[in-house]
């Protein structure tokens, strides 16, 4: 079974394939960015940790996006991006036909 990582598997074939969380929650079609189907919390880059730009020298240019499974609220990805940038599609597996 192809998998994005230990947390997310691809189930099914071709256009029927879907991304599934380890809890069984069906995230969405494998042909789409799994992250747009997750719960997302977007906040200041400082949300990523106590030593992330603690003096705020970068202003509010960068954001921390945390993506959670809507089923089990496991954290499935943390993305650092400029505020204006779209959600990155970081993993696109070739799905078996």
């Amino acid at each position: 079974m192809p998998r994005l990582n230990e947390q997310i598997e691809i189930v099914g074939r071709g256009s029927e394939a879907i991304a599934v969380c380890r809890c069984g929650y069906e995230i969405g079609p494998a042909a789409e960015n799994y992250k747009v189907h997750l719960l997302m919390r977007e906040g200041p880059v400082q949300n990523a940790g106590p030593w992330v730009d603690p003096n705020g020298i970068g202003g509010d240019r960068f954001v921390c996006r945390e993506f959670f499974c809507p089923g089990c609220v496991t954290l499935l990805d943390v993305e650092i991006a400029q505020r204006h940038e779209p959600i990155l599609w970081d993993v696109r597996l070739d799905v078996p036909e």
Partner: protein
Amino acid sequence: MTDTFAPEDLTAGGNGALDPVTFEILRSRLSAINDEAAMTMRLVSGSPVANEAYDMNVGLMDADGDCFAIGMYITIHALALSSTVKDIRQRFAADDVGPGDVFMSNDPYVGACHQMDVAVVAPIFAGDRLVAWTGSTVHQIDLGGPVEGQVQLGATSIWSEQPLFPPIKIVDAGELRPDVERGYLRRTRLPHLVDLDLKAMIAGCNVGVARVQDLTGRYGTDVVLAAIEGINVATAARFRARLAELPDGTWSHRGYIEYDEVYPVVVEMTKDGDSLTFDYTKSADQAGAVINCTRPACVGAVVAAVLPYLCYDMAWSPAGLQRAIEVRTREGTVVHAAWPAGTSKATTTGSFMATISAGVCLSKLLAASEGHLRQFMSTWMGGLYVEDMFGVDQRGEFFGAAILDAMAGGSGARAFADGLDAGGFLDSPSAIIANIEDIEYSYPVLYLSRRIQPDTGGAGKYRGGNTLAMTYITHDVERLPTKILHAIGTFQPGSIGVAGGYPSNTNQFVIKRETNVRDLLAGGAVPDDLGALDGELEIFADPIVKTSQGPDDVHRYVAMGGGGYLDPLDREPELVLADYVVGAVTVAHASDAYGVVIDVDEMCVDEAATDRRRRQIRDERRHSATVPGAATRQRGST
């Protein structure tokens, strides 16, 4: 490095001219020659950059300039040496390249990673037959230009950076050319140090030439040439087999360079069967100067990422790998500079982020593989801080230095264990940092502290390695007149986490001015916390700063840790406690990031409170996050 070859590799390498056993002997010997050349260079060089921090490398190229064996130091130099040799092959008449010749170049548009990484290369002849090349490089502390050191702050093009020299012959048939040497040294503020490094690089080449000639004499030229081609063939075969074991797909990453604005380094990595493509064409347009790298440096940067992630058990032949890797770039970008864009800081900006961005994709490729998950590593230190320092030292001599302590970044979390605290950085399998005593002996500084900084590694079920924080003051001099502090990863953490791991900290540098540190020292205290000192804190917002340090100023910086792996709420509470006990994690971070409540009196995990805290964090997640649906769809997704 482990070099184990399967029988089919040996057959593939044999190509008829030599038997597998001889092939293996020669392959090992050529690798050992690189080691000896590197050690020679290190011992001849007086530069702490080479001697204490190993910011250098050596390589062996075939007659055409393809690098079949790279030394175990800064791996990006493989392509620099290779491109420099190819340029010489193209530009010099065949009878202008002879036994005993040595060439040098610092031209990034030819191949040098940036102007400071001078490439010195020498042809290896067996009789009158050109059989191979050897090369060496050491990062130089000053090669002229308006600003001391590497970073040409204020430069708008390569014309306001260090002068370039395309390949020139520095040694002609065994004789050093004094006019060329003099011309080279004329441009630096540190002629003695730069001259010693030049001799060190030539010495490294001399070792490579002599030892390979010994081999051709003993085994015959055809046998050695067959072994060289065999190394490339075997590595390419082994690498393609490794790729075939991994899942197919496309991985993307956006890394960032902070400069006058933010420059994304965007890569899309496609793994298809037994080939690998890295596409950087969506990266930011180039800056006028300073942060760009040229295409050879970008290709070298990819090789530097592929070697540790995928080639941990095969011979490190960049030429072999290149047979299965394609690197796409767009001229005029920050990773493929168009003339005359400047490149003076390339190895800690353009090419550095090219390596990190490729590394993130490779780490996620391994994360997608059940069979190779144990080789997974989350992101290593994703932004390097360096201080270039110039002034008059405690002996009254003019000096220049590059302080490279921040190379002790955190390594990325693994799939079964944490990253290493102060584990180094991805670009060098042999990264070390100087002992404090060596730095204090060489330069007029006194360290108040250098230690692992808790909570700097990215949180995760397995956390990223923590990095170092340091404080120091001047020593035995009135002041340090010139300090150039420079880093990327100051606004954002370059070491991102994978599959729910958090990123590391960011690079930070501050100076507390006009403190009472001398009084405290006189009273017997060693104040290593800025909060305990009087004075005014100067926080630098720019990623490149030129400043000075007076006798009562305390300089502090925090380097960058490694990225985490998986949701930190899945971390075993006992591991969090163990981190607390050794000072790797604070009580506050244990609760905030891991949901683990530590009873500091009993030195144990409060299990009931931990259950409650973790439930609370999960509730917060559910209530503070939104189903992206329409909103994010509108913003699109790339």
